[in-house]
Protein backbone atom coordinates (compact mmCIF):
# COMPACT_ATOMS: atom_id res chain seq x y z
CA UNK A 1 0.00 0.00 0.00
CA UNK A 2 2.76 2.41 0.85
CA UNK A 3 4.60 1.72 -2.41
CA UNK A 4 1.90 2.97 -4.76
CA UNK A 5 2.33 6.73 -4.24
CA UNK A 6 6.05 6.47 -5.07
CA UNK A 7 5.60 4.43 -8.26
CA UNK A 8 2.68 6.37 -9.78
CA UNK A 9 4.35 9.72 -10.61
CA UNK A 10 7.30 8.00 -12.33
CA UNK A 11 4.99 6.12 -14.73
CA UNK A 12 2.87 9.18 -15.67
CA UNK A 13 5.10 12.19 -16.11
CA UNK A 14 2.29 14.70 -16.67
CA UNK A 15 0.49 16.24 -13.75
CA UNK A 16 -3.35 16.09 -13.87
CA UNK A 17 -3.46 19.84 -14.54
CA UNK A 18 -1.11 19.57 -17.46
CA UNK A 19 -3.02 16.64 -18.91
CA UNK A 20 -6.23 18.66 -18.72
CA UNK A 21 -4.60 21.60 -20.52
CA UNK A 22 -3.32 19.39 -23.32
CA UNK A 23 -6.71 17.73 -23.71
CA UNK A 24 -8.45 21.06 -24.06
CA UNK A 25 -5.84 22.30 -26.52
CA UNK A 26 -6.45 19.25 -28.71
CA UNK A 27 -10.20 19.90 -28.76
CA UNK A 28 -9.72 23.53 -29.87
CA UNK A 29 -7.25 22.51 -32.55
CA UNK A 30 -9.73 19.99 -33.98
CA UNK A 31 -12.47 22.62 -33.97
CA UNK A 32 -10.31 25.12 -35.88
CA UNK A 33 -9.23 22.54 -38.44
CA UNK A 34 -12.86 21.52 -39.14
CA UNK A 35 -13.95 25.17 -39.42
CA UNK A 36 -11.12 26.03 -41.82
CA UNK A 37 -11.81 22.99 -44.02
CA UNK A 38 -15.56 23.72 -44.16
CA UNK A 39 -14.98 27.40 -44.89
CA UNK A 40 -12.55 26.69 -47.73
CA UNK A 41 -14.71 23.95 -49.28
CA UNK A 42 -18.01 25.84 -49.17
CA UNK A 43 -19.17 27.96 -52.08
CA UNK A 44 -20.28 31.00 -50.10
CA UNK A 45 -21.71 32.83 -53.08
CA UNK A 46 -23.96 29.92 -54.00
CA UNK A 47 -25.05 29.43 -50.41
CA UNK A 48 -26.00 33.08 -50.05
CA UNK A 49 -27.77 32.96 -53.43
CA UNK A 50 -29.94 29.98 -52.53
CA UNK A 51 -30.50 30.18 -48.76
CA UNK A 52 -30.23 33.88 -48.01
CA UNK A 53 -31.77 35.35 -51.13
CA UNK A 54 -33.19 38.62 -49.81
CA UNK A 55 -35.25 39.32 -52.93
CA UNK A 56 -37.03 35.98 -52.69
CA UNK A 57 -37.52 36.44 -48.96
CA UNK A 58 -38.93 39.95 -49.45
CA UNK A 59 -41.46 38.73 -52.00
CA UNK A 60 -43.29 36.64 -49.41
CA UNK A 61 -43.05 39.25 -46.71
CA UNK A 62 -46.44 40.66 -45.93
CA UNK A 63 -48.21 37.34 -46.55
CA UNK A 64 -45.70 35.41 -44.44
CA UNK A 65 -47.17 37.12 -41.40
CA UNK A 66 -50.68 38.19 -42.46
CA UNK A 67 -51.60 34.81 -43.94
CA UNK A 68 -49.18 32.02 -43.11
CA UNK A 69 -48.27 32.86 -39.50
CA UNK A 70 -51.85 33.95 -38.77
CA UNK A 71 -53.24 30.61 -40.01
CA UNK A 72 -50.58 28.66 -38.12
CA UNK A 73 -51.63 30.42 -34.93
CA UNK A 74 -55.32 29.79 -35.65
CA UNK A 75 -54.76 26.07 -36.33
CA UNK A 76 -52.59 25.73 -33.22
CA UNK A 77 -54.95 27.50 -30.85
CA UNK A 78 -58.11 25.82 -32.11
CA UNK A 79 -56.40 22.43 -31.92
CA UNK A 80 -55.17 23.29 -28.43
CA UNK A 81 -58.66 24.21 -27.24
CA UNK A 82 -60.08 20.92 -28.55
CA UNK A 83 -57.17 18.95 -27.07
CA UNK A 84 -57.46 20.72 -23.71
CA UNK A 85 -61.18 20.00 -23.34
CA UNK A 86 -60.93 16.42 -24.60
CA UNK A 87 -57.77 15.78 -22.58
CA UNK A 88 -59.40 16.98 -19.37
CA UNK A 89 -62.45 14.83 -20.09
CA UNK A 90 -60.22 11.78 -20.67
CA UNK A 91 -58.24 12.43 -17.48
CA UNK A 92 -61.45 12.61 -15.44
CA UNK A 93 -62.77 9.48 -17.17
CA UNK A 94 -59.60 7.64 -16.18
CA UNK A 95 -60.38 8.39 -12.54
CA UNK A 96 -64.05 7.42 -12.85
CA UNK A 97 -65.51 4.73 -10.63
CA UNK A 98 -67.36 3.41 -13.70
CA UNK A 99 -64.95 0.90 -15.24
CA UNK A 100 -66.03 1.25 -18.93
CA UNK A 101 -65.18 4.98 -18.75
CA UNK A 102 -61.70 4.11 -17.52
CA UNK A 103 -61.25 1.50 -20.27
CA UNK A 104 -62.45 3.89 -22.98
CA UNK A 105 -60.08 6.62 -21.83
CA UNK A 106 -57.07 4.29 -21.51
CA UNK A 107 -57.71 2.77 -24.93
CA UNK A 108 -57.99 6.19 -26.53
CA UNK A 109 -54.78 7.38 -24.90
CA UNK A 110 -52.85 4.24 -25.88
CA UNK A 111 -53.99 4.43 -29.50
CA UNK A 112 -53.51 8.13 -30.10
CA UNK A 113 -50.15 8.28 -28.36
CA UNK A 114 -48.96 5.38 -30.49
CA UNK A 115 -50.01 6.79 -33.86
CA UNK A 116 -47.95 9.28 -35.90
CA UNK A 117 -49.80 12.58 -36.09
CA UNK A 118 -49.48 12.40 -39.86
CA UNK A 119 -51.55 9.20 -40.02
CA UNK A 120 -54.33 10.90 -38.06
CA UNK A 121 -54.31 13.82 -40.51
CA UNK A 122 -54.37 11.47 -43.50
CA UNK A 123 -57.30 9.66 -41.90
CA UNK A 124 -59.22 12.89 -41.36
CA UNK A 125 -58.45 13.96 -44.93
CA UNK A 126 -59.81 10.67 -46.28
CA UNK A 127 -62.99 10.58 -44.18
CA UNK A 128 -65.11 11.92 -47.10
CA UNK A 129 -64.08 8.81 -49.08
CA UNK A 130 -65.86 6.65 -46.54
CA UNK A 131 -68.82 8.94 -45.90
CA UNK A 132 -69.42 10.90 -49.11
CA UNK A 133 -71.76 13.44 -47.54
CA UNK A 134 -69.56 14.01 -44.49
CA UNK A 135 -68.33 17.53 -43.85
CA UNK A 136 -66.27 18.45 -40.80
CA UNK A 137 -67.82 21.76 -39.67
CA UNK A 138 -65.51 24.68 -40.40
CA UNK A 139 -63.86 23.06 -43.43
CA UNK A 140 -60.08 22.89 -43.25
CA UNK A 141 -60.12 24.91 -40.01
CA UNK A 142 -62.45 22.38 -38.42
CA UNK A 143 -60.39 19.46 -39.74
CA UNK A 144 -57.19 21.01 -38.42
CA UNK A 145 -58.72 21.66 -35.00
CA UNK A 146 -60.00 18.09 -34.91
CA UNK A 147 -56.71 16.53 -36.03
CA UNK A 148 -54.48 18.55 -33.71
CA UNK A 149 -57.04 18.17 -30.92
CA UNK A 150 -57.20 14.38 -31.24
CA UNK A 151 -53.42 14.13 -31.18
CA UNK A 152 -52.78 16.48 -28.28
CA UNK A 153 -55.72 15.25 -26.17
CA UNK A 154 -53.95 11.95 -25.49
CA UNK A 155 -50.83 13.72 -24.21
CA UNK A 156 -52.76 16.37 -22.31
CA UNK A 157 -54.88 13.66 -20.64
CA UNK A 158 -51.74 12.09 -19.19
CA UNK A 159 -50.49 15.50 -18.06
CA UNK A 160 -53.82 16.34 -16.42
CA UNK A 161 -53.87 12.98 -14.71
CA UNK A 162 -50.47 13.68 -13.17
CA UNK A 163 -51.74 17.11 -12.13
CA UNK A 164 -54.88 15.71 -10.54
CA UNK A 165 -52.81 13.19 -8.62
CA UNK A 166 -50.46 15.95 -7.44
CA UNK A 167 -53.27 17.77 -5.61
CA UNK A 168 -53.00 16.68 -1.95
CA UNK A 169 -55.67 14.24 -0.76
CA UNK A 170 -56.61 16.58 2.08
CA UNK A 171 -58.07 19.08 -0.41
CA UNK A 172 -60.76 16.61 -1.45
CA UNK A 173 -61.41 15.63 2.18
CA UNK A 174 -61.77 19.27 3.21
CA UNK A 175 -64.19 19.94 0.35
CA UNK A 176 -66.27 16.84 1.09
CA UNK A 177 -66.34 17.60 4.83
CA UNK A 178 -67.92 20.98 3.99
CA UNK A 179 -70.76 19.10 2.30
CA UNK A 180 -69.65 19.47 -1.31
CA UNK A 181 -70.67 16.55 -3.53
CA UNK A 182 -67.77 14.80 -5.27
CA UNK A 183 -68.41 16.44 -8.65
CA UNK A 184 -68.66 19.93 -7.14
CA UNK A 185 -65.39 19.38 -5.24
CA UNK A 186 -63.67 18.31 -8.46
CA UNK A 187 -64.89 21.37 -10.37
CA UNK A 188 -64.34 24.00 -7.65
CA UNK A 189 -61.33 22.69 -5.76
CA UNK A 190 -59.35 19.90 -7.43
CA UNK A 191 -59.36 20.77 -11.16
CA UNK A 192 -58.37 24.45 -10.71
CA UNK A 193 -55.34 23.38 -8.65
CA UNK A 194 -54.43 20.58 -11.07
CA UNK A 195 -54.50 23.02 -13.99
CA UNK A 196 -52.14 25.38 -12.16
CA UNK A 197 -49.73 22.52 -11.54
CA UNK A 198 -49.67 21.49 -15.20
CA UNK A 199 -49.28 24.95 -16.76
CA UNK A 200 -45.54 24.42 -17.54
CA UNK A 201 -45.99 21.05 -19.31
CA UNK A 202 -49.06 22.42 -21.08
CA UNK A 203 -46.98 25.31 -22.39
CA UNK A 204 -44.55 22.76 -23.81
CA UNK A 205 -47.51 21.00 -25.41
CA UNK A 206 -48.41 24.29 -27.08
CA UNK A 207 -44.91 24.41 -28.60
CA UNK A 208 -45.29 20.85 -29.91
CA UNK A 209 -48.70 21.62 -31.35
CA UNK A 210 -47.39 24.77 -33.03
CA UNK A 211 -44.89 22.61 -34.89
CA UNK A 212 -47.43 19.85 -35.61
CA UNK A 213 -49.75 22.41 -37.22
CA UNK A 214 -47.48 22.05 -40.29
CA UNK A 215 -49.32 18.76 -40.93
CA UNK A 216 -52.33 20.77 -42.11
CA UNK A 217 -50.38 20.75 -45.37
CA UNK A 218 -51.75 17.25 -45.96
CA UNK A 219 -55.39 18.32 -45.73
CA UNK A 220 -55.23 20.20 -49.04
CA UNK A 221 -55.60 23.92 -48.38
CA UNK A 222 -56.38 26.98 -50.51
CA UNK A 223 -54.03 29.96 -50.77
CA UNK A 224 -55.98 31.76 -48.03
CA UNK A 225 -55.74 28.78 -45.66
CA UNK A 226 -52.02 28.19 -46.06
CA UNK A 227 -49.82 27.91 -42.96
CA UNK A 228 -46.08 28.47 -42.53
CA UNK A 229 -44.71 25.16 -43.81
CA UNK A 230 -46.89 25.01 -46.91
CA UNK A 231 -46.36 28.70 -47.57
CA UNK A 232 -42.59 28.19 -47.50
CA UNK A 233 -42.84 25.11 -49.67
CA UNK A 234 -45.05 26.84 -52.29
CA UNK A 235 -42.79 29.87 -52.43
CA UNK A 236 -39.79 27.59 -52.77
CA UNK A 237 -41.19 25.91 -55.86
CA UNK A 238 -42.26 29.25 -57.37
CA UNK A 239 -38.77 30.75 -57.05
CA UNK A 240 -36.84 27.48 -57.29
CA UNK A 241 -35.03 28.52 -54.13
CA UNK A 242 -34.80 27.06 -50.60
CA UNK A 243 -34.78 30.55 -49.05
CA UNK A 244 -38.58 30.63 -48.30
CA UNK A 245 -38.31 27.37 -46.39
CA UNK A 246 -35.50 28.82 -44.31
CA UNK A 247 -37.63 31.93 -43.71
CA UNK A 248 -40.59 29.76 -42.62
CA UNK A 249 -38.29 27.84 -40.31
CA UNK A 250 -37.04 31.04 -38.72
CA UNK A 251 -40.63 32.20 -38.25
CA UNK A 252 -41.40 29.00 -36.32
CA UNK A 253 -38.39 29.67 -34.11
CA UNK A 254 -39.66 33.21 -33.54
CA UNK A 255 -42.57 31.66 -31.65
CA UNK A 256 -41.22 28.36 -30.31
CA UNK A 257 -38.02 29.67 -28.69
CA UNK A 258 -39.69 32.40 -26.56
CA UNK A 259 -42.54 30.03 -25.70
CA UNK A 260 -40.10 27.33 -24.63
CA UNK A 261 -38.31 29.93 -22.53
CA UNK A 262 -41.59 30.90 -20.87
CA UNK A 263 -42.34 27.23 -20.14
CA UNK A 264 -38.94 26.76 -18.46
CA UNK A 265 -39.43 29.93 -16.42
CA UNK A 266 -42.85 28.78 -15.21
CA UNK A 267 -41.40 25.41 -14.37
CA UNK A 268 -38.56 26.78 -12.25
CA UNK A 269 -40.90 29.25 -10.57
CA UNK A 270 -43.23 26.43 -9.61
CA UNK A 271 -40.36 24.34 -8.32
CA UNK A 272 -39.36 27.27 -6.14
CA UNK A 273 -42.84 27.50 -4.69
CA UNK A 274 -43.04 23.91 -3.54
Amino acid at each position, binding site marked *: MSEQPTTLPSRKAWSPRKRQRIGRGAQYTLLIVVAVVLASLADWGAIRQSFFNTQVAADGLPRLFTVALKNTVIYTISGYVVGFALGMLLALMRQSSVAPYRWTASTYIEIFRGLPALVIFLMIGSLPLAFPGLQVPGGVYGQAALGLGLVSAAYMAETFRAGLQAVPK*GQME*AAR*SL*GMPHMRAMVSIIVP*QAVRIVIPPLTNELVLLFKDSSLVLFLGVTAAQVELAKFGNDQASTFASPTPILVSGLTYLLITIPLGYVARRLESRQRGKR
Partner: protein
Amino acid sequence: MSTVEIRNLHKSFGQLEVLKGIDFTVEAGQVVCVIGPSGSGKSTLLRCVNLLERPTSGQVFVDGTELTDPDVDIDAVRRRLGMVFQQFNLFAHLTVLRNVTIAQERVLKRGRAEAEEIARETLEKVGLSEKADSFPAQLSGGQQQRVAIARALAMNPSLMLFDEPTSALDPELVGDVLSVMRELAQDGMTMLVVTHEMGFAREVADRVVFMDRGAIVEDGPPEQVIADPRHPRTREFLGRVLHPEGADDE
Protein backbone atom coordinates in the same frame (compact mmCIF):
# COMPACT_ATOMS: atom_id res chain seq x y z
CA MET B 1 -81.36 13.23 21.50
CA SER B 2 -77.60 13.16 21.51
CA THR B 3 -75.66 15.17 18.94
CA VAL B 4 -73.49 12.15 18.25
CA GLU B 5 -74.32 8.59 19.13
CA ILE B 6 -72.07 5.69 18.19
CA ARG B 7 -73.12 2.07 18.67
CA ASN B 8 -70.75 -0.88 18.50
CA LEU B 9 -68.54 0.74 15.85
CA HIS B 10 -65.95 -1.44 14.13
CA LYS B 11 -63.47 -0.31 11.50
CA SER B 12 -60.83 -2.42 9.77
CA PHE B 13 -58.24 -1.50 7.16
CA GLY B 14 -57.68 -4.83 5.45
CA GLN B 15 -56.53 -7.24 8.17
CA LEU B 16 -55.90 -4.49 10.68
CA GLU B 17 -58.77 -3.83 13.07
CA VAL B 18 -58.46 -0.18 14.12
CA LEU B 19 -61.73 0.23 16.04
CA LYS B 20 -62.97 -2.72 18.07
CA GLY B 21 -66.50 -1.93 19.13
CA ILE B 22 -66.91 1.69 20.21
CA ASP B 23 -69.98 2.90 22.12
CA PHE B 24 -70.02 6.56 22.81
CA THR B 25 -72.18 9.70 22.79
CA VAL B 26 -71.71 13.46 22.68
CA GLU B 27 -74.54 15.59 24.08
CA ALA B 28 -75.42 19.00 22.66
CA GLY B 29 -73.18 21.72 24.09
CA GLN B 30 -70.57 19.27 25.38
CA VAL B 31 -66.86 19.48 24.68
CA VAL B 32 -65.39 15.99 24.51
CA CYS B 33 -61.64 15.47 24.18
CA VAL B 34 -60.32 12.15 22.91
CA ILE B 35 -56.79 11.33 24.04
CA GLY B 36 -54.60 8.30 23.62
CA PRO B 37 -51.36 7.03 22.11
CA SER B 38 -50.83 7.28 18.36
CA GLY B 39 -52.37 4.34 16.55
CA SER B 40 -55.07 3.99 19.18
CA GLY B 41 -57.77 4.72 16.58
CA LYS B 42 -58.86 8.13 17.86
CA SER B 43 -58.49 9.93 14.50
CA THR B 44 -60.27 7.07 12.73
CA LEU B 45 -63.13 7.36 15.23
CA LEU B 46 -63.42 11.08 14.50
CA ARG B 47 -63.33 10.48 10.74
CA CYS B 48 -66.11 7.91 11.07
CA VAL B 49 -68.36 10.61 12.54
CA ASN B 50 -68.49 12.47 9.19
CA LEU B 51 -67.93 9.35 7.12
CA LEU B 52 -64.53 10.32 5.74
CA GLU B 53 -63.94 6.71 6.77
CA ARG B 54 -66.72 4.17 6.25
CA PRO B 55 -67.33 2.06 9.35
CA THR B 56 -66.98 -1.68 8.77
CA SER B 57 -69.96 -2.30 11.05
CA GLY B 58 -71.96 -0.54 13.71
CA GLN B 59 -74.07 2.60 13.68
CA VAL B 60 -73.32 6.33 13.76
CA PHE B 61 -76.09 8.83 14.47
CA VAL B 62 -75.72 12.61 14.15
CA ASP B 63 -78.68 14.66 15.44
CA GLY B 64 -80.78 11.50 15.21
CA THR B 65 -79.93 10.82 11.53
CA GLU B 66 -78.26 7.46 10.95
CA LEU B 67 -75.16 8.10 8.81
CA THR B 68 -74.52 4.42 8.40
CA ASP B 69 -77.89 4.03 6.63
CA PRO B 70 -76.92 3.51 2.96
CA ASP B 71 -79.77 5.78 1.79
CA VAL B 72 -78.74 8.79 3.85
CA ASP B 73 -77.72 11.97 1.99
CA ILE B 74 -74.21 12.21 3.41
CA ASP B 75 -73.60 15.67 1.92
CA ALA B 76 -76.64 16.99 3.78
CA VAL B 77 -75.33 15.56 7.07
CA ARG B 78 -71.80 16.89 6.51
CA ARG B 79 -73.23 20.40 6.07
CA ARG B 80 -74.04 20.33 9.79
CA LEU B 81 -70.58 19.05 10.80
CA GLY B 82 -67.51 21.28 10.82
CA MET B 83 -64.17 19.50 10.43
CA VAL B 84 -60.73 20.86 11.28
CA PHE B 85 -57.74 18.83 10.08
CA GLN B 86 -54.24 18.41 11.45
CA GLN B 87 -52.80 19.66 8.14
CA PHE B 88 -55.31 22.59 7.85
CA ASN B 89 -56.20 21.65 4.23
CA LEU B 90 -57.05 25.20 3.20
CA PHE B 91 -57.83 25.49 -0.50
CA ALA B 92 -54.44 26.59 -1.76
CA HIS B 93 -55.68 28.36 -4.90
CA LEU B 94 -58.21 30.57 -3.11
CA THR B 95 -57.85 33.63 -0.90
CA VAL B 96 -58.67 33.39 2.79
CA LEU B 97 -62.03 35.09 2.18
CA ARG B 98 -62.87 32.76 -0.72
CA ASN B 99 -61.88 29.74 1.39
CA VAL B 100 -64.58 30.78 3.84
CA THR B 101 -67.24 31.73 1.27
CA ILE B 102 -66.99 28.98 -1.36
CA ALA B 103 -68.89 26.26 0.49
CA GLN B 104 -71.45 28.77 1.76
CA GLU B 105 -72.19 29.70 -1.85
CA ARG B 106 -71.89 26.29 -3.48
CA VAL B 107 -73.43 24.16 -0.73
CA LEU B 108 -75.75 26.41 1.29
CA LYS B 109 -76.62 28.53 -1.80
CA ARG B 110 -76.06 31.78 0.04
CA GLY B 111 -75.60 34.88 -2.12
CA ARG B 112 -72.10 36.33 -2.58
CA ALA B 113 -72.78 39.39 -0.40
CA GLU B 114 -74.31 37.39 2.45
CA ALA B 115 -71.53 34.80 2.34
CA GLU B 116 -68.85 37.49 2.46
CA GLU B 117 -70.51 39.21 5.38
CA ILE B 118 -70.63 35.95 7.34
CA ALA B 119 -67.05 35.17 6.31
CA ARG B 120 -65.82 38.53 7.62
CA GLU B 121 -67.66 37.96 10.90
CA THR B 122 -66.12 34.53 11.42
CA LEU B 123 -62.65 35.75 10.40
CA GLU B 124 -63.08 38.52 12.97
CA LYS B 125 -63.94 35.88 15.55
CA VAL B 126 -60.66 34.02 14.91
CA GLY B 127 -58.75 37.33 14.83
CA LEU B 128 -57.78 37.32 11.15
CA SER B 129 -60.00 39.90 9.45
CA GLU B 130 -56.94 41.69 8.06
CA LYS B 131 -55.82 38.51 6.22
CA ALA B 132 -59.00 38.19 4.12
CA ASP B 133 -57.18 38.82 0.84
CA SER B 134 -54.08 36.73 1.57
CA PHE B 135 -53.46 33.28 0.15
CA PRO B 136 -52.94 30.32 2.51
CA ALA B 137 -49.25 30.02 1.59
CA GLN B 138 -48.70 33.54 2.93
CA LEU B 139 -49.96 32.63 6.41
CA SER B 140 -48.28 30.90 9.34
CA GLY B 141 -49.52 27.45 10.35
CA GLY B 142 -51.43 28.88 13.30
CA GLN B 143 -53.13 31.46 11.09
CA GLN B 144 -54.01 28.80 8.53
CA GLN B 145 -55.58 26.66 11.20
CA ARG B 146 -57.65 29.58 12.47
CA VAL B 147 -58.87 30.22 8.91
CA ALA B 148 -59.78 26.52 8.70
CA ILE B 149 -61.83 26.93 11.88
CA ALA B 150 -63.54 30.02 10.41
CA ARG B 151 -64.25 28.11 7.19
CA ALA B 152 -66.04 25.40 9.17
CA LEU B 153 -67.86 27.86 11.46
CA ALA B 154 -69.27 29.85 8.55
CA MET B 155 -71.43 26.82 7.71
CA ASN B 156 -73.21 27.13 11.10
CA PRO B 157 -72.42 23.56 12.12
CA SER B 158 -74.16 21.91 15.06
CA LEU B 159 -70.96 20.00 15.84
CA MET B 160 -67.28 20.75 15.30
CA LEU B 161 -64.77 17.93 14.83
CA PHE B 162 -61.11 18.66 15.52
CA ASP B 163 -58.50 16.14 14.38
CA GLU B 164 -55.28 16.97 16.28
CA PRO B 165 -55.64 20.65 15.34
CA THR B 166 -52.37 21.77 16.93
CA SER B 167 -50.12 18.78 16.21
CA ALA B 168 -48.63 20.26 13.03
CA LEU B 169 -47.95 23.67 14.56
CA ASP B 170 -44.77 25.23 15.88
CA PRO B 171 -45.05 25.37 19.69
CA GLU B 172 -45.34 29.16 19.84
CA LEU B 173 -48.37 29.10 17.49
CA VAL B 174 -50.38 26.53 19.45
CA GLY B 175 -51.73 29.06 21.96
CA ASP B 176 -53.64 31.18 19.42
CA VAL B 177 -55.46 28.17 18.01
CA LEU B 178 -56.32 26.82 21.46
CA SER B 179 -57.67 30.18 22.60
CA VAL B 180 -59.98 30.31 19.56
CA MET B 181 -61.19 26.82 20.45
CA ARG B 182 -61.66 27.81 24.08
CA GLU B 183 -63.87 30.74 23.02
CA LEU B 184 -65.90 28.43 20.83
CA ALA B 185 -66.46 26.13 23.77
CA GLN B 186 -67.55 29.09 25.92
CA ASP B 187 -70.05 30.08 23.22
CA GLY B 188 -71.68 26.68 23.72
CA MET B 189 -70.44 24.91 20.56
CA THR B 190 -70.61 21.13 20.67
CA MET B 191 -67.06 19.90 20.06
CA LEU B 192 -65.33 16.56 19.61
CA VAL B 193 -61.58 17.11 19.83
CA VAL B 194 -58.79 14.60 19.24
CA THR B 195 -55.79 16.17 20.92
CA HIS B 196 -52.52 15.75 22.77
CA GLU B 197 -52.98 19.07 24.61
CA MET B 198 -53.64 17.84 28.16
CA GLY B 199 -53.85 21.37 29.55
CA PHE B 200 -56.61 22.22 27.09
CA ALA B 201 -58.46 18.98 27.80
CA ARG B 202 -58.28 19.49 31.55
CA GLU B 203 -59.45 23.09 31.37
CA VAL B 204 -62.07 23.05 28.59
CA ALA B 205 -63.44 19.52 28.22
CA ASP B 206 -66.65 18.37 29.89
CA ARG B 207 -65.54 14.80 29.27
CA VAL B 208 -62.25 13.17 28.42
CA VAL B 209 -62.16 9.85 26.60
CA PHE B 210 -58.98 7.76 26.75
CA MET B 211 -58.57 5.34 23.86
CA ASP B 212 -56.00 2.59 23.47
CA ARG B 213 -55.69 -0.19 20.86
CA GLY B 214 -59.03 0.56 19.21
CA ALA B 215 -61.16 0.64 22.33
CA ILE B 216 -62.34 3.18 24.89
CA VAL B 217 -60.51 2.51 28.13
CA GLU B 218 -61.82 5.34 30.25
CA ASP B 219 -64.54 7.98 29.79
CA GLY B 220 -65.34 10.65 32.36
CA PRO B 221 -64.82 14.21 33.55
CA PRO B 222 -61.26 15.53 33.16
CA GLU B 223 -60.65 15.80 36.90
CA GLN B 224 -61.14 12.05 37.01
CA VAL B 225 -59.56 10.78 33.75
CA ILE B 226 -56.57 13.13 33.72
CA ALA B 227 -56.07 13.90 37.41
CA ASP B 228 -57.05 10.56 38.90
CA PRO B 229 -57.09 7.83 36.23
CA ARG B 230 -58.53 4.47 37.26
CA HIS B 231 -56.99 2.30 34.59
CA PRO B 232 -53.24 1.45 34.61
CA ARG B 233 -52.98 2.04 30.81
CA THR B 234 -54.38 5.56 31.24
CA ARG B 235 -51.95 6.19 34.06
CA GLU B 236 -49.01 4.94 32.02
CA PHE B 237 -49.98 7.07 29.00
CA LEU B 238 -50.50 10.21 31.05
CA GLY B 239 -47.22 9.62 32.82
CA ARG B 240 -45.41 9.58 29.50
CA VAL B 241 -47.26 12.64 28.12
CA LEU B 242 -47.13 14.83 31.22
CA HIS B 243 -43.57 13.97 32.29
CA PRO B 244 -41.79 12.94 29.10
CA GLU B 245 -38.32 13.29 30.69
CA GLY B 246 -39.07 12.00 34.16
CA ALA B 247 -40.30 8.64 32.89
CA ASP B 248 -36.83 7.13 32.72
CA ASP B 249 -35.91 8.02 36.28
CA GLU B 250 -37.82 5.22 37.92
